């Protein structure tokens, strides 16, 4: 087993795509870095924290991106965002088979906040344009820094979200919530609670993540292949029916979680026996357990994104 979490963005690309097939757009040798960091005395990176390009996945032409969580927390700045948008638009131009986004991001990069905020909304719109063009978009969340802020929203604009248990998908980080509303609201040092609240297993049980895998590059690659194959069979653009189904799921979630403040209680209400055991279960055992209980099951709709 080779950990996905421990790899850099640049190492994840060859682990996910067919060997030697990936061609990077605007590679580091072009030295296109953030124009805003120098004046804040912050170091730049020649890829601005994201690798974008085109490769083969299972023999199909798939466009892809990988955010580097260790560079400024994977946060989106002007160049970083523009690279994502350019890649997404090119995927449409070239009729890609799919788009695979390896996300790891704290959201908007505060050092260039306004540009980052606009950029994240541009990424979201571009992702939905890709889907409207009939190209499936798959997001992978398995890095140590999770996927937060605007990118946490963007991830849910994909058709399918693949996570590991170690991955986190949310909006505001626990530290931000603790700072704003106190340690009683969210104890950011209680990492077990942080993962129960935002981690892959919880997201899978809630229906916000469609595939859960062990932290293993081969498992992530297999899941990406599976997701793309499943999506290839149907419509991948937004539909009224799909959004109505998602709305029903989200409304039901609100209703079912009335008065609940502990994620384990949500699992219990979903019918998961002995919820306290869930965090320790290995991926396979968890999937077996979750199969009968997770919300947003395939019986409600196809197992893709918002359906």
């Amino acid at each position, binding site marked *: 087993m080779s*950990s996905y979490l*421990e790899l850099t963005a640049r190492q994840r690309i060859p682990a996910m795509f067919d060997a030697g097939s990936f061609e990077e757009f605007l590679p580091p040798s072009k030295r296109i870095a953030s124009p805003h960091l120098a004046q804040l005395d912050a170091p730049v990176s020649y890829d601005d924290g994201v690798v974008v390009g085109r490769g083969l996945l299972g023999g199909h032409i798939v466009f892809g991106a990988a955010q580097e969580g260790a560079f400024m927390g994977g946060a989106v700045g002007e160049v970083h965002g523009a690279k994502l948008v350019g890649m997404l638009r090119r995927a449409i131009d070239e009729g890609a088979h799919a788009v695979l986004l390896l996300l790891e991001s704290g959201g908007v990069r505060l050092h260039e906040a306004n540009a980052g905020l606009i950029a994240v909304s541009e990424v979201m719109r571009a992702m939905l344009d890709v889907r409207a063009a009939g190209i499936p978009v798959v997001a992978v969340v398995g890095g*140590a820094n999770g996927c937060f802020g605007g990118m946490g929203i963007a991830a849910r604009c994909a058709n399918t979200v693949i996570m590991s*248990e*170690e991955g986190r998908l949310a909006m505001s980080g626990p530290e931000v919530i603790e700072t704003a509303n106190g340690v009683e609201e969210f104890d950011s*040092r*209680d*990492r*077990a*609670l*942080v*993962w129960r609240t935002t*981690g892959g*297993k919880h997201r899978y049980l809630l229906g916000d993540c469609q595939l859960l895998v062990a932290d293993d590059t081969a498992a992530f690659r297999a899941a990406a292949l599976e997701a793309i194959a499943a999506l290839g069979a149907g419509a991948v653009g937004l539909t009224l029916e799909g959004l109505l189904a998602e709305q029903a799921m989200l409304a039901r979630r609100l209703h079912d979680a009335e008065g609940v403040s502990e994620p384990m209680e949500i699992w219990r209400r979903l019918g998961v026996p002995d919820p306290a055991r869930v*965090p*320790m279960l290995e991926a396979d055992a968890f999937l077996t357990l979750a199969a009968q209980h997770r919300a947003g099951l395939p019986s409600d709709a196809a197992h893709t994104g918002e359906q």
Partner: protein
Amino acid sequence: MTAEGRWTIQQDNRRARLERASNALGGALKGKLVEASHIVELLHAVLEPGDRVCLEGNNQKQADFLGKALTRVDTARVHDLHMLLSVLSLPEHLDVFEKGIASKLDFSFSGPQAGRLAKLAGAGRLNIGAIHTYLELFARYFIDLTPRVALIAAEMADREGNLYTGPNTEDTPAIAEATAFKSGIVIAQVNQIVDKLPRVDIPGDWVGYVVQSPTPYYIEPLFTRDPAQISEIQVLMAMMAIKGIYAEYQIERLNHGIGFDTAAIELLLPTYAAGLGLKGKIARHWALNPHPALIPAIEAGFVESVHSFGSELGMENYIRARPDVFFVGPDGSMRSNRAFSQAAGHYACDMFIGSTLQIDLQGNSSTATLGRIAGFGGAPNMGADARGRRHPSAAWLKAGQQAREGRNTIPRGQKLVVQMVETFREHMAPAFVERLDAWQLAEQTGMAIPPVMIYGDDVTHILTEEGIANLLLCRSDEEREQAIRGVAGYTPVGMARDKRMVENLRERGIIRRAEDLGIDKRMATRDLLAAKNMKGLVRASGGLYDPPKRFRNW
């Protein structure tokens, strides 16, 4: 004064204190059990101005309820206490000085309070008697710093005052014995009062009073290191340690300091060391807290025994299931004992290896930084040659032989004391310096001598990412200095090396680089770690290890 009274002053005084307490507490005192709401009244009754008071602050468990109660006493009745603390880590430990309840301090380690302690000492709010090692402080409890009153912590008590400390026995026996047998008064806070204890750790007739604390005592998981944070440089250093020192000297009995450097070694035992065929030959017997990072090595059959200073949160069930390795009572839980384990580390171990913050050109190492009086804890007890040791072992004899070779001295062994540091710490702070910050700290705070953690003449090896300097083989002060410079990397100390002399030391095997040891640096990746993260440790333990929630990502 009567003839008998002349020799029973302390006993008479003790009796008077107990009587005062019984009068003051009335119905709030049932046998030895005191109601928590009356704890300050008890302290008023049994304390006298100027008393030596030992407040149990350990590395792990803390008598925090009694510590807080002490800050609430009336200074008109209780003042000028002389506090004895092995670990001074909670705010209330210093509040008593700020409030004028206590004025003198003897201690060993101050951890998170080090900065505030330096400020208070600088402002003349407290008078530090001395900064000790643990064993040294315990020793003085029996000589000239015997407590009048001891405030201790235990897991449970029964109605006779027998105490069960659970796995965190730590300092309790040393404190209670010194106090109880010299007419002092022992007050214990416990989490629970029960009819029948799982086992008796402290006999009830040593204990004067028991109070059930409203909240369980505070306990700190101090020895847990998340393998996810171990760097590839630390893996390389661990490889060098195993091949260049553990294998070289066949070290079977040892102590590890706490830190990511030593955690990396622990996690490389079942992989790298096993690959070198070292299982059963090295690292068999340990004086060590139950480091979670040691689990894979234990499971791999490397480790035969571990005696511990204290326990570690989350390791309880694992220890209970491995009684062949750990010291456990008939109830199944571990019995730790800091005094015995310190003695074991000093006399019965062939090697100590640990990290430090600064090393000077004589090899003196210090963790002192400006503005902080951190103290020593137990490292100096482990990291010092046991001059009283007489029993031989291969490692001890080899070290002694290397140190004495070519000199006209009688054969004798020596303990291996290894300091392991990266040449730069974070923010490019050099680990090698011409002059330790300890000198300046001593001047600032009026200490008699600079606070040195491990003295240079006890250090036998310095290990950095650049190489291992074997100081045993150095034959002059100059060689010693160049050997240190020769592993000091690109620090100013390292760059000022005499390159020719360093090359000569390398030819003589006094300095050894990774490649001299036959280590391929490209092998030094995190893939060598037997567990790469906390969940890996849990898996290795078969689900028995239950890490504190702050260490989880699941």
